[in-house]
């Protein structure tokens, strides 16, 4: 599975766009697992600090970071890169 993490906050005007985008991604790609992290919670703020997230929305595809709402194509490309990493090595 490829983990996509979305850091949001209720006061953030563009966060719903990021949320909708990753929900669309999850709907069309069963290999992705979405995790929402709200900075309105203590736990969310601790996770944000651990990942050095300073603004919302921030979207991670595994370790690839998008600050702000990512472009759809960039998001797909990041997911595709992660898929390549986890594919088993083909024997010659």
């Amino acid at each position, binding site marked *: 599975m490829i983990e996509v993490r979305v850091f949001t906050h209720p006061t953030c005007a563009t966060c719903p766009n990021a949320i909708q985008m990753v929900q669309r991604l999850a709907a069309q790609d069963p290999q992705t697992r979405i995790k929402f992290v709200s900075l309105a919670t203590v736990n969310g703020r601790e996770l944000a600090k651990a990942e050095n997230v300073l603004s919302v929305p921030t979207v991670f595809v595994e370790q690839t970071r998008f*600050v702000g709402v990512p472009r759809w194509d960039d998001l797909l490309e990041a997911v595709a890169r992660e898929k390549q990493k986890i594919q088993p090595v083909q024997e010659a």
Partner: protein
Amino acid sequence: MSKTALVRSCVLPLDLHYKIEEHVWLRIEADEIITLGFTDVAQTTAGKMLVVSFRPIGARYAKGKTVAIVESGKWLGPLRAPMNGTLLSANEALFEDAALVNRSPYNKGWVVRMKPDDLQTGLQDFLTGAEAAPAYENFMERRNLDDCIHCEGYEFPDD
């Protein structure tokens, strides 16, 4: 070396001076003119700024007198003259877009400029950036303030 300190995700440029109880920063410009604005902590605590109004430009103000008022959905904050002096100018961009205080608290969201009568004496009420970071940490702990939130479009001082 970073030019900013981070306290609970709140950005504090080290080259500014701070009066943390009032969430105000001060920058010393040429000719001992000072620029004043609200800190990252203020913009987070207040939420989206809606209206900014100013007292008459060109007038003299005693220390503690209100020179501007910033209003958000949940906060009405006066900006007080930190020292005796003359109000030179106001950031008129805030009339059109008060949320510049949120998006760019240390640059485009500055509030007023003043010419103090005695800058050096007035600065005694302020902390330097290096002093302000631990002081703000203590202040936020005492007041149980949340970490700062930066929405998309926030302008970090180092950008």
